[in-house]
């Protein structure tokens, strides 16, 4: 899995900031079969969580209808300088994480 985060590096206190995240993942639905007719097991990212200095500010549950390489965009309020952490967890139990720093003035 490889992820990309787009968020402002600096913001004013109280400002609403938009965060865009994208991650490479096949989001295999579990409904497909391979060329020999064997069902391909489901493997999707089923949960996404964003924490701001340890406090959860956004989370999402994902389902098989979500396309591959999901793009998730959301907003939060810039409260203080700190770390935004992102975690994507898939059906195989693998969790991909990413962090960014934000400076709030």
């Amino acid at each position, binding site marked *: 899995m*490889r992820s*990309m985060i*787009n968020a402002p590096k600096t913001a004013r206190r109280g400002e609403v900031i938009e965060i*865009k995240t*994208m*991650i*490479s993942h*096949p*989001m295999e639905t579990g409904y497909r079969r391979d060329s020999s007719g064997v069902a391909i097991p489901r493997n999707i990212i089923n949960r996404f969580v964003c924490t701001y200095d340890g406090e959860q500010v956004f989370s999402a549950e994902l389902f098989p209808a979500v*396309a*591959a*390489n999901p*793009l998730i965009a959301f907003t939060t309020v810039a409260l203080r300088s700190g770390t935004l952490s992102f975690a994507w967890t898939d059906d195989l139990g693998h969790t991909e994480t990413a962090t960014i720093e934000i400076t709030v003035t």
Partner: protein
Amino acid sequence: MRLWLRCCLVVYCLEVAAVVVAAAAGEISPADKRSGLDFVSPETRRLQEDDTSNPGMLWVLDGERLWREPAGAAGAACAGCHGEAAASMRGVAARYPAFDPAAGRPIDLQGRVNECRSQRQGAQPFAFESQELLALTAFIAQQSRGLPVAEPRDARLRPFIDNGRRLFRQRLGQLDIACADCHDDRWGERLSGSLIPQAHPTAYPLYRLEWQALGSLQRRLRNCMIGVRAEPFAFGAPELVDLELFLMQRAAGLPMETPGVRP
């Protein structure tokens, strides 16, 4: 008798008129040349134009890593010989496929990457449509973004461009349709709800929402062949490279867009 003659004359005139119309519908004039991006929805266009929402960038980032990673028996990385891709690879994708003197025929970008792997790095060539090959070619082609596709000047390419043009106009498959029937004569019209573009391969490898992945121009060409119920050429077949070469020559002047996003 005179009436019969007159009928023949009318029919003949109609035929001449039909031929003239067909010729006029033929090749796209330079003023009408438009990127495939002009035929997609505003939402898809926005995906392509913002790197942070363009899923093709995931492959480009992978390609950047592969560019620096030593591979094969020689333990050499692409960057070891070519240095910074931003300088050394700028404009390269805009002039491929190019003539390969060793093979005596044109070679496309993915062919060149694999040739470098087997001959310089001493590594196994990447499989067609593998993550690695798509990532490296996307990274290399992205260095040419914004540059116009170059008109091929190498005279040795002539016969291969001509063969590509012949294949483009060749009716294929159970539907008996040539590439030109749609992409020269009916661009801007609809094929089962989708706008028919002009088939300029300026954004490859590109992310198709239908594929949910990045894919090469060869994959796209094979898709169209399957669509007209023809037996597609195998990946890497000389016919596909000739078609790629002809299409790039036909697109000359349009800006490179890799990695593109299409429906």
